[in-house]
């Protein structure tokens, strides 16, 4: 697939459009259907399209897996932070009114936009992460399948696991 | 010293003893000293209560209130006083005996043995001093559970089997029958305090339900070993002899009959019970147990098993006496608790001594053994005579009162049961005595032996002496018990 020229060219047009559309859904959610969740999914879809065409490695170069985990947590934390801000400013949790005491409507809008952004962040990265995990899993399995069955298979990871295990045991031992 | 503190000390002493014993496990001499010290101090503490009780004071201690309106409370009355004295006094003797037994037999796990023994005594004390049914039930279970390790002391297949039957029957009856009976009582009356004259009234419970309740109590107290709940007692004989002697002849089984007596006197009340139509059924059941257990005992060849069945039969005497519902019979029940304790502990001590000295456990091996172990066999004879109920032994006194009680209410069934069982008792005890004294040894013993080690011989001599002494000096106990009956009726 990767070498298919047509796909690449179409993708080059499509992907930015998709991402743009995602941003539109994200920030226009108060006026038309859409919001953080849908935007996140669409954004992730754009990235997935990218991966399907350019390969997982390229995709991970753009957004590394670790970053996904971090952003995914940050999205949730952003939401929580906005909520907490309400508390810190003397209101209830997720109470947006105290954010801008002078303009209650504006405060609500700001709150909604911000939490929606948090939702979008989390959703987009989670979807990407899940996809990465599934896709990455496949390549790992193929790798193992390549080993002839007759050979006694030793898994390097397994051994690592094992030694890690033992080291914890000893650690626990000494602590006792 | 205030009464509450005294009660607390009595409960606490064996527990502290148990802790100390398990801490001193590495030094047997220290451990044994602790055991004896604990036992003696417990006895002294218990005897401190005689004065106030005789003077009619109430000693009361309430610890906690686990269920609204229900306390864990202790209150001593004469019946419990007798039981407490008995158990704590015999603990000293048994400790001496056990030390001799355990050491000369090189038993393993001695530390846990002594520790659990102390806990079991604590359970017995709790039962004796319980101020209401809930407290009694709690310590009843403590007693059950703390004796399980003693029964399974040998940790072999037989011990495991015996332990299963033991725990199975005792827990099944207590949880399955006694507990619902208690809760039922509570839901009817709103109290569980032991009250002279009883807490149940005719207008709160129908006679039929009351009979059912009484049956649940009598069968639920598995420790009283009324048939068909008696199987645990022979099963418990896998335990070392000191356990059989103190617990299964004195503390545990007496806790059972004590419970029944308490329930009869303080929960139902004699007058109320007399109005019940079917109460006779339980008398018959107890009478049947007396006879049947004696018959089974007749056929046993192992000394300890025979003694166990004899215990089953003797316990039902007490239940029977309690259910005759005559004042004299109630006194007889209380006295039989004491009398049987002295006699039966002597017999068990003798059986253990024979086992330790001669490694003999069967009745048919005892030919001529009296000439090697004269003290032991004389003591055995005294115990046996007391079981049969011949003067001048303790057993006669209690039988006297029970018979008198039966005459008070013209209960000829009880009289017949007593007569028959006396004959049966004679039939299984006297041949042993005869064999030991008047027949020659058939098989020479494996090793030349004399008496068992001195602590054991001393202990059994002492209890035999008590058996006889009680015949002459039972006055205080009888007076004591009369006191409760005056209050009760």
């Amino acid at each position: 697939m990767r070498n298919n020229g047509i796909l690449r060219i179409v993708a080059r047009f499509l992907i930015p459009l998709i991402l743009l559309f995602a941003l539109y859904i994200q920030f226009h959610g108060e006026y038309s259907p859409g919001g953080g969740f849908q935007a996140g999914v669409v954004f992730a879809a754009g990235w997935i399209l990218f991966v399907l065409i350019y390969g997982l490695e390229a995709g991970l170069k753009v957004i590394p897996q670790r970053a996904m985990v971090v952003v995914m947590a940050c999205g949730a934390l952003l939401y929580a932070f906005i909520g907490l801000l309400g508390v810190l400013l003397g209101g209830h949790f997720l109470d947006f009114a105290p954010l801008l005491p002078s303009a209650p409507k504006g405060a609500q809008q700001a709150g909604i936009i911000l939490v929606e952004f948090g939702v979008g962040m989390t959703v987009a990265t989670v979807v990407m992460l899940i996809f990465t995990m599934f896709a990455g899993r496949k390549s790992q399995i193929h790798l193992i399948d390549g080993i002839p069955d007759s050979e006694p298979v030793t898994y390097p990871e397994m051994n690592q696991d094992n030694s890690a295990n033992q080291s914890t045991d000893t650690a626990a031992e000494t602590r006792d | 010293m205030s009464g509450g503190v005294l009660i607390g000390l009595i409960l606490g002493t064996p527990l502290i003893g148990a802790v100390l014993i398990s801490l001193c496990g590495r030094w047997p001499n220290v451990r044994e000293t602790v055991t004896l010290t604990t036992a003696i101090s417990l006895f002294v503490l218990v005897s401190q209560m005689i004065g106030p009780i005789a003077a009619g004071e109430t000693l009361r201690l309430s610890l906690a209130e686990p269920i609204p309106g229900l306390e864990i409370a202790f209150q001593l009355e004469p019946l419990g006083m007798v039981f407490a004295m008995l158990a704590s006094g015999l603990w000293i003797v048994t400790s001496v005996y056990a030390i001799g037994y355990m050491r000369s037999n090189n038993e393993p796990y001695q530390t846990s043995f002594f520790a659990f023994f102390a806990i079991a005594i604590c359970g017995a004390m709790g039962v004796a001093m319980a101020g209401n049914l809930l407290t009694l039930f709690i310590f009843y279970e403590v007693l059950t559970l703390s004796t399980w390790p003693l029964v399974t002391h040998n940790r072999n297949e037989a011990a495991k089997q015996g332990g299963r039957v033991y725990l199975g029957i005792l827990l099944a009856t207590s949880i399955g029958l006694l507990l619902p009976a208690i809760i039922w009582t509570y839901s009817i009356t709103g109290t569980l305090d032991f009250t002279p004259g009883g807490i149940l009234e005719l207008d709160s419970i129908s006679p039929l339900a009351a009979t059912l309740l009484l049956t649940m109590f009598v069968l639920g107290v598995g420790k009283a070993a009324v048939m068909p709940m008696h199987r645990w007692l022979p099963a418990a004989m896998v335990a070392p002899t000191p356990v059989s002697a103190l617990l299964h002849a004195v503390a545990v089984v007496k806790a059972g009959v004590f419970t029944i007596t308490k329930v009869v006197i303080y929960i139902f009340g004699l007058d109320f019970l007399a109005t019940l139509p079917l109460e006779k059924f339980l008398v018959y059941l107890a009478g049947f147990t007396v006879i049947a257990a004696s018959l089974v005992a007749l056929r046993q060849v192992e000394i300890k098993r025979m003694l166990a069945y004899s215990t089953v039969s003797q316990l039902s005497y007490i239940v029977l006496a309690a259910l005759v519902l005559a004042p004299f019979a109630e006194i007889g029940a209380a006295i039989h608790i004491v009398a049987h304790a002295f006699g039966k502990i002597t017999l068990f001590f003798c059986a253990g001594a024979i086992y330790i000295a001669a490694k003999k456990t069967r009745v048919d091996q005892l030919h001529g053994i009296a000439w090697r172990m004269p003290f032991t066999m004389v003591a055995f004879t005294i115990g046996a005579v007391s079981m049969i109920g011949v003067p001048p032994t303790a057993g006669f006194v209690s039988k006297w009162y029970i018979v008198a009680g039966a005459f008070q209410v013209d209960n000829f069934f009880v009289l017949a049961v007593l007569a028959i069982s006396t004959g049966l008792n004679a039939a299984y005890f006297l041949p042993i005595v005869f064999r030991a004294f008047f027949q020659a040894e058939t098989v020479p013993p494996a090793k030349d032996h004399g008496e068992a080690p001195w602590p054991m011989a001393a202990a059994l001599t002492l209890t035999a002496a008590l058996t006889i002494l009680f015949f002459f000096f039972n006055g205080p106990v009888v007076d004591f018990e009369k006191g409760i009956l005056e209050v009760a009726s």
Partner: protein
Amino acid sequence: MTLIEWMPFSVLIPLIAAPVCALLPGRVLPWTLTFVSVLASAVICALVLPMAVGEGPLSYAFGNWPPPVGIEYRVDAVNALLALLISAIATIILPWARVSVNDEVPDRQGPFYALFLLAMSGLMGITLTGDVFNVFVFLEISSLSTYALIAHGKNRAALLASFRYLIMGTLGATFYLIGVGFLYIQTGTLNMVDLAERLPALADDRAIRTAFGFIIVGMGLKLALFPLHRWLPGAYSNAPSMVTVFLAATATKVAVYVLLRLVFSVFGVEFALAMPFEEIFFTLGAVGIFFASLSAIKQTSLKRMLAYSSVSQIGYIALAISLISTAGLSAGLVHIFNHALMKGALFMCVGAIVYRIGSDRFADLGGLAKQMPLTMLAFVLAGLSMIGVPLTAGFISKWALISAAIEAGNGYAVGIVLIGSLMAVIYIWRVVEIAYLQPAPDNADMSRRREVGLSMLIPLWILIAANFYFGIDTRLTLDIATRGAEVLMGMTP
């Protein structure tokens, strides 16, 4: 800030700590964060409890939108007690769990603890909320994280167990959702108080009745009510020890709570009486006690045995609920609390054993009392509580349950409870016999068979002490449970 304003933070603190925790590297940091946040949650619950009991329902509106419009947390005696139970158990488990988790989940402990926090706060959220849909959301938070936690078990069977639980759990949640859907369609509201006001007018409505049925089936799946319990043994026996302890002590209890709350507070006692609710719960409870105990007796490994025992204990709770009386409900609530104490302690013992000897099969337990005396003693004591021996918490539950049954004149219930107790004697004592009377198996690795460290023993013995404390001093449990039962029965405003 007032206490009421702190109240939702018992849920929010762990919830917010979780994403942070997921990012933390190593082993010490995630654990510390988890412990601190759980502890904070427990402290808040402990402070809120007296107020909730004394001053009736406390309400906290999220976003400051008044309840039927927004979502409120509504705390009274019942859920305050349960929330305290959850957070306290979690607090006790964590110090215990460190060693065990290091052993069973060597890598990526940050996410692991994050999932634990989420599972816990999910349960807390279900407990405190006053909105039926919010229940669903938090139910899914706790369920999803629980599935993931179970799958962390070392065995491959853990995956299967987790998957099966996922299917059953999601089915249950969807049933619940459908029930909520019907409620919503017929009333137009999701707030529990609002629902309770609007439902009596609709008592004969078929959709409402079906909603009742669906919610019961859905929650029945989650709480492992007898015929719907089959996911539970696999899940409990294959999950990492820490997760098992936590789930056994709390998860099914929360489902019971939801059921109680909806049936009694939302639908109302009259409605429940009009439905064949008592008969079904009584039958299922009774049959459940019996068959689950029987299965427990037949098991040959500790975790499975205890898992079945849990199913049978749920039977007791169902039985207590089926009496539909203040005494019955209070017995059920007390048992929820006490069972958490004893089952938590028992599973902690098993966790310690598994940590040491790597197995929980009966065949490997011989002679363990000698090598792990304190753990086994704890097992015996917790087992006694399970059986219902006096002075233990289990006795109090049993007493309350039997009293309630006698009060309701239900002799069968008394019998069933007693038979259940006797069966508990059998399965607990089997283990005791093996551990105390049987010699160690020949192939046992004696170097591993040692007592566990203090980090495991102290929490374990705290629970054991609690078992005895709540067996003697029942002011906290019985009084609050009675109060809670009165609230549920609608006796007090």
